[in-house]
């Protein structure tokens, strides 16, 4: 295709297809009378069209038509089975199985509002923790009481003994 073909292609095609208005067709033809290359391009285009018109269209045999029609269906089926086969490959199966797990994990990680049951359970856990704290406090209190009680008893008995001893000594001195 020379540069003229490219330049006039659209208009030539329109002319051959009868899509050009009469005025445009006349303008093109008058241009061609001054331009030999354009005139030749128009003649060649007409000749090509005539040659094409003389070619007979042979109908394909029914068996060939059947086979040709079947091609798109087979391709579709093939691509579908290929996708299914690829989908069930181990690595894809794993990836697919991981998706719901990831969703569960994301849900679990989110600081969503806990249910009433969960809060009640937490409340119970807190009470248990406090009960153990209270128990540790009781043990401590008991031990402190025991130690202080013993010390007090020792102090008291020591004091009583000293008093008895002193009284005893005083009475002996009086006797003497």
């Amino acid at each position: 295709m020379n540069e003229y073909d490219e330049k006039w292609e659209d208009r030539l095609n329109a002319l051959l297809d009868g899509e050009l208005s009469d005025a445009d067709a006349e303008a093109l033809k008058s241009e061609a009378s001054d331009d030999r290359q354009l005139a030749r391009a128009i003649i060649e285009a007409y000749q090509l069209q005539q040659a094409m018109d003389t070619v007979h269209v042979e109908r394909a045999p029914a068996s060939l038509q059947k086979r040709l029609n079947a091609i798109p269906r087979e391709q579709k089926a093939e691509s579908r089975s290929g996708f299914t086969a690829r989908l069930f490959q181990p690595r894809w199966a794993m990836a697919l199985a991981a998706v719901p797990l990831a969703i569960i994990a994301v849900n679990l990680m989110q600081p969503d509002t806990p249910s009433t049951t969960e809060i009640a359970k937490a409340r119970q856990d807190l009470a248990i923790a406090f009960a153990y704290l209270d128990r540790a406090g009781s043990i401590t209190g008991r031990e402190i009481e025991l130690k202080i009680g013993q010390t007090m008893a020792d102090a008291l008995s020591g004091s009583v003994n000293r008093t008895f001893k002193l009284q005893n000594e005083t009475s002996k001195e009086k006797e003497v």
Partner: protein
Amino acid sequence: MKHSMMTKLMTGLFCTLLSLPAMAQEDELKDLPGYVDFGDLTSLYGEPKVIINLGGTMLNFVSMMSASESPATSDMISKLKGVRVQIFATDSNTDASKAQFNKVKGNLKSAGWEPIVQINEDDEQVLIYMKMQDGNMEGITVMVIDDEEAVFINIIGQLNPAELGKVMKVLDVDIDLD
């Protein structure tokens, strides 16, 4: 072979995902100054008979739920950032728990915790430590070991022990520890 590997992998992944919330809650508390690492006694005593891990978010919800019953209790719980309890049955084998007790005690001292109560009897050991920072209480740790059990409690946040009795009445949970 390939499939069994995959099954194991998937099971492992699933278990990891399920334990994520507990791990997340524990991780959330680890950075707080009142947190105490009690170590691992599961290899000696098996799984703890009681394990409690309450994070700040859950405690806030408990506090909100208690507000209508007792504002004082709600206020007290709102000051807590975390509550952790681990209780192991010792079955008279207290050597391991005593060793852990002493290890934790050493860690507490070096981390600036202050001893409040310490009882060292043959059949019973009690230790209460408190962590203060800038005049505020950051946590309290209680460890009790006797012939039956080893108790490790870590309260993160502010707690007034004198109010425990009142709070337990409000929580109204019947607990018999004896």
